[in-house]
């Protein structure tokens, strides 16, 4: 008998996901990504690679041209209200409601996510878990630093208690300490069985935390590596290697621009 691993059902699944915008730009080309319970999938890629487009399709902010985005087996674009019950979201540069306190923000978003039975202690526990001090609980968000706001955003995702989590550039602009703390939290959530799909520019954090790393270039998944496959590999070199075409193209554009400028 072969030694096989029983895989959990996918909680986030992109099947041949394609998006062509009205101006003809192909943002995604037959993307296939699967994230199961207790997994972190990091999508790496430059600007315009299709990372945020993927997340936007999962959240039904845009419709795919073809293919499917499934959350907990529910088509996110056909039954968005049902699909969104099973997913939490943390965006880049979370600001939340600046005139609300941390507690008020948590309360509002928890209720919006269908959790209307939380008590103050539940919110306090979530805030403590993400590393906020008790003196910040009743402060208005406009007095928070970016890192503190990001922690609030994660607390909101924790309180929703959804099986899947989407993170869009979650560590963008965070200082190293806040970034490290964030990595710890995401790891904890993975250990609790959450399926996490994360878009990021941060190669090192992706390697540190992700179970799968997918490299996207011009809407295509050009490489997908497991944590095991990344052991001993310099991810930066790998990233540059796969992005070479993209980089060359950028360099070409840059040099022609420089030439044009020098001619003028």
């Amino acid at each position, binding site marked *: 008998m072969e030694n096989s691993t029983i895989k959990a059902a996918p909680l986030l699944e992109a099947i041949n996901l394609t998006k062509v915008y009205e101006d003809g730009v192909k943002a995604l080309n037959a993307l296939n990504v699967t994230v199961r319970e207790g997994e972190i999938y990091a999508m790496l890629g430059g600007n315009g690679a299709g990372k945020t487009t993927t997340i936007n399709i999962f*959240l039904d*902010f845009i419709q795919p041209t073809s293919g499917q985005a499934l959350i907990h087996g529910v088509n996110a674009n056909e039954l968005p*209200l049902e699909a969104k019950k099973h997913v939490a*979201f943390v965006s880049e540069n979370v600001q939340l409601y600046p005139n609300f306190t941390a507690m008020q923000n948590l309360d509002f*978003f928890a209720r*919006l996510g269908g959790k209307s039975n939380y008590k103050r202690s539940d919110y306090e526990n979530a805030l403590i878990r993400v590393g906020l001090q008790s003196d910040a609980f009743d402060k208005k968000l406009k007095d928070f630093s970016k890192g503190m706001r990001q922690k609030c955003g994660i607390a909101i995702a924790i309180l929703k208690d959804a099986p899947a989590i989407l993170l869009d550039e979650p560590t963008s602009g965070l200082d190293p300490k806040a970034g490290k703390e964030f990595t710890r939290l995401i790891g904890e959530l993975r250990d609790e069985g959450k399926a996490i799909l994360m878009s990021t520019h941060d190669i090192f954090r992706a390697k540190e935390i992700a179970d799968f790393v997918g490299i996207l270039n011009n809407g295509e998944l050009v490489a997908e590596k497991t944590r095991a496959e990344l052991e001993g590999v310099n991810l930066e070199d790998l990233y540059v290697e796969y992005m070479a075409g993209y980089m060359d193209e950028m360099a070409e554009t840059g040099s022609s621009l420089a030439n044009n400028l020098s001619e003028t």
Partner: protein
Amino acid sequence: MFKLIFLKELRDIIQSSRFTISFAVCSVLIILAFVMGAQNYLASKAQYDAAIQENRNQIEANTDWVMVEHSIMLPPQPLMTLVNGVLNDIGRNISMSGRGELRSENTRFNDEPIFAVFRFMDLEFIFGIILSLFAIIFAYDAINGEKNRGTLKLCFANPISRAGYIGGKLAGSFVGLSVALLIPILIGCALLPVLGVQLSADEWLRLALILIAGIAYFGVFLAIAITISASTVKPSNAFLIGLVVWIFAVLIVPRTSVLISGRIVDVPNVDEITAQKNRYRTQLFDEDRPKMSNFQLPEGTEMEDAMGVFQSFMSDLSATRQEKIDLFNARLNEQYTNKKRQQERLALSLSRISPSSAFTLAATELAGTSLTLQNHFMDAAYTYQESYADFMNEKTGSNRSSGFRMVMITTGGVEEEPEPLDPDELPQFTFKSQDISSAARAGMVDLSLLILFNLVFFGGAFRAFLNYDLR
């Protein structure tokens, strides 16, 4: 979901520093408008009472009704000082004569010309200019601001419908800001009796309708701002567009409609008409002059009767002439009035595409200070003229038309001490503004229009948001 968004919006508004500042400014201005309105009313009332007393004194100082110079005045009313409308632009006094044309004189701006330049700060100004601008300032980033903060994306990562969200947001903004406005308004209303201004039940009802029109007007600009916010990405662009819309609606459209109607309907100017009337009067007088020159006493007239015969001749001549003048003037006046009303109707219809005009018209109709105020005052004056003419006829034997007056003083005989006149003998002039049902009927057109504007722009905001790019 609707309730959750609604309550969030209320809380967000109330906890914002923008609200605190705007609420403080609005409260001060609204309460100030009530206080100034009350003070204006009390000052006008004191002035009116003094003028009435002066009129009485003047009558009492005379011993013959022939010598009396009687004036009637537009009595001040509390609502009129809260919503001025045309009150300060029309003459408040009319010098009474038993026949002929009456002319209102002495506008408020005659006494205080500075206000003609800067106008008064009444409730119509506060709502029409200040609060509509605050609505834009409040709501220009209602949707695109949330998008820029990332809260829109975060909200819609949850199972909520767009319709529920925008519905809750619109209702929350409207209720939150309207209730906030009602607080200083209610304080202002409560201050009126304290300041010595007593309103009748009818006037309270009118004031309530004016305030409903004001809130509806505020709602229109709130919905316009939210529609713009749901149609743009950058809040700065939305603010700029909102400001342009406000300038057009509040400042440009009402003035332009008057200009356009002036171009379309040609109304002869008052000086032209007055010149025509004067020419006709002179012409008739010239025609009568030979008759006067050729006047001869009938044969056998006693010397003591001569003056009476001559006076009777002159009086008949004057009456016939005046009859012709009255007919001619009436015809000219009617033509002028018809044209003027046609022009006004066109201007008002055109201006109603702006919610600002609809509010002004509704508020002034309900306060009794619309364009019709002058007509009402003049109608009341002409009605009074009839009883005044009868009274003067009875007292003096002539109806005291202006101009020719002959007094015969005899000497000799037994001197009798003449009795001073009793002003109470004179018929009293009463002016009643339009009754509540007529005012409400007239104001209802514009009030309905404001509600329609609300529905259209709230619908517009709803529709714009359904197509809004949430990313």
